[in-house]
């Protein structure tokens, strides 16, 4: 079932606008994640799809049918709440069966469906228990089961894993992915956890301040962010951002990061990027984004390499991160006062070592300093 949001706005009173002019086209069977920080409007958007919030403007269609003014209970969407919202006075069985009974399904079918889902989610041993007698993980699975047992048009999930501890969260994440692969029911998932979004989603919509900034596959939003906010929000540790200028020299277009009194960065843009920039971009002042794993650490200087010193090393197991300072001053670094670059733990670098940085050739992002939008 497709979910299409057209020009959706949600305002509370005249002052607070939670969602602005949102257009979204979720495909049949897709796992779509709305990702963003707290208060960005992602949960409000989900609740509007569910019918729990009225839209101020715009239309919502599920499977081609305009449901903008259809009451929530008639939309046939199932939602998994952050709090799980299990009925505390009912047994797990009753929790799972409620919707089927409301729909008036024959008793035998209700029983068969509940058993099937309970077995699938490994909660068949606790069907007679009440939610208060279950562990966090079991409650989470009951909440999922309550949604699955209905075979709804659309699954809506509002940060369903956020109450689980890290290990259980990772396990459940995998189960959720597998479950979606099996059922292929259109799923709209809300989270502020970018790693969850990257692992689970077919596509991700990144939101901030009520606006949808970018929609794309996990790799696309990670490697080609459309906006400086998206670049910063996705990826851990987050992207390095540097103040840079465009520089035309002979045959090519170069991006320069000048560091007073030190060796600055000078990088020749790939031809395609150069062409795109020459055609469209007017400003020379840009923000240069380089992911930590795309910042290569060199032990020797060369023209165009950025001089830095190793402040300390953060080992993360398979990989280590070097926290780096620029001797000429950190003023060119945006959002924080240091740079981060990935290093190989088998090739350790001492604290205080002088190193030189250069980006992996085509793995840089450029953003307009005024608008924050990607250029090139």
């Amino acid at each position: 079932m497709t979910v299409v949001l057209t020009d959706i706005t949600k305002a509370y009173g005249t002052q607070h606008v939670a969602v602005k002019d949102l257009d979204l086209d979720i495909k049949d069977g897709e796992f779509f994640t709305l990702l963003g920080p707290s208060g960005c409007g992602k949960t409000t958007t989900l609740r509007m799809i569910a019918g729990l919030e009225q839209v101020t403007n715009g239309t919502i269609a599920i499977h081609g049918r305009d449901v903008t003014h259809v009451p929530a209970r008639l939309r046939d969407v199932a939602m998994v709440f952050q709090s799980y919202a299990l009925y505390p006075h009912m047994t797990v069985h009753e929790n799972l069966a409620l919707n089927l009974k409301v729909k008036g399904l024959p008793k035998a079918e209700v029983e068969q469906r509940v058993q099937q889902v309970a077995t699938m989610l490994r909660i068949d041993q606790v069907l007679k228990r009440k939610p208060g007698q279950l562990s966090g993980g079991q409650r989470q699975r009951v909440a999922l089961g309550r949604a699955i047992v209905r075979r709804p048009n659309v699954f809506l999930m509002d940060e369903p894993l956020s109450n689980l501890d890290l290990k259980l969260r990772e396990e459940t994440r995998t189960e959720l992915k597998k479950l979606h692969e099996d059922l292929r029911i259109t799923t709209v998932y809300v989270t502020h956890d970018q790693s969850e979004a990257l692992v689970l989603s077919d596509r991700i919509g990144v939101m901030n301040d009520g606006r949808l900034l970018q929609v794309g596959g996990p790799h696309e939003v990670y490697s080609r962010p459309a906006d400086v906010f998206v670049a910063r929000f996705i990826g851990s540790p987050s992207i390095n951002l540097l103040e840079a200028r465009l520089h035309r020299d002979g045959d090519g277009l170069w991006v320069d990061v000048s560091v007073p009194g030190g060796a600055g960065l000078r990088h020749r843009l790939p031809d395609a990027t150069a062409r795109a920039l020459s055609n469209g971009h007017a400003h020379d002042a840009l923000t240069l984004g380089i992911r930590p794993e795309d910042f290569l650490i060199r032990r020797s200087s060369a023209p165009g390499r950025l001089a830095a010193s190793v402040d300390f090393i953060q080992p993360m197991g398979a990989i280590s991160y070097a926290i780096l300072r620029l001797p000429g001053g950190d003023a060119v670094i945006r959002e924080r006062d240091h740079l981060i670059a990935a290093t190989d733990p088998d090739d350790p670098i001492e604290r205080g070592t002088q190193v030189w940085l250069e980006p992996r050739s085509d793995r840089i992002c450029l953003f307009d300093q005024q608008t924050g939008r990607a250029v090139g």
Partner: protein
Amino acid sequence: MTTAPSAGLRPARVIVNTLTVGLVLVWLFPIYWIFLTSLKTPKEINKKTPTLLFEPTLENYRHLFDEFHFARILKNSTIIVGLTTAIVMVLALLAAYALARMNVPGGKHIALWMLSLRFMPPIAVVIPFFITWQKLHLTDTHLGLVLIYVAFNLPFAIWMLRGFLVEVPRDLDEAATLDGLGHLAIIRKIILPVIAPGAAVTAIFTFVFAWNEYLMALVLTSHEATTVPVTVSKFIQAYSILWGDVGASAVIELAPMLVVVFLLQRHIMRGITLGAVK
């Protein structure tokens, strides 16, 4: 050695327990005394030195039912109080749900305003009620008292239930909505079972108020719909007080409340502390 800390607390606990038992005895003694009185003959009751050991008799109870038609009066009270409690609970639950959940403009203020109706002294309105009820032919009828008791109890019940209701996470209503339930079904199947302890406490308060109400019943009933408290007062006569009948009727009046409170005491405790601990 794990008993050491509790051993240290023992003297304090003994004092607290002694005080508690003492207090309970002081509170229970009048009830005990009334119970004894109800089993004594008039001669025994009027002895200058009260006795604790005597031959008990059910004569007072027999007198009460034979001479004062107490069965009918008990039936009146049961009908009036039962209906009042049922109507109050249904209306209050619906109103409380609307106030707590449906974004009624100024819902909080409405709830407080309703509660403020309870501040009004009944004596101030009893005469206007009497005149109006007479014109509507509602005096000395079950319905007449039920209407007044509902009006008097509803604000408090709404306010109390609303308090319990706002503690119930909205997610539950929303999950139920998405499960296909309408408002009434949500109240019946989700909200009511979740706030059952609170609802039980509210019902007990309503029941107790209506069961004990004296002023309105005295003024608005005379014979057909008269209630237990009014009848008890009639045993204080011009030249004598029928202590035996007072005792017996008081025991009968107390009995249902003791039974209700005893049966629901677990819920009462949970109701009183509902929402105190997440």
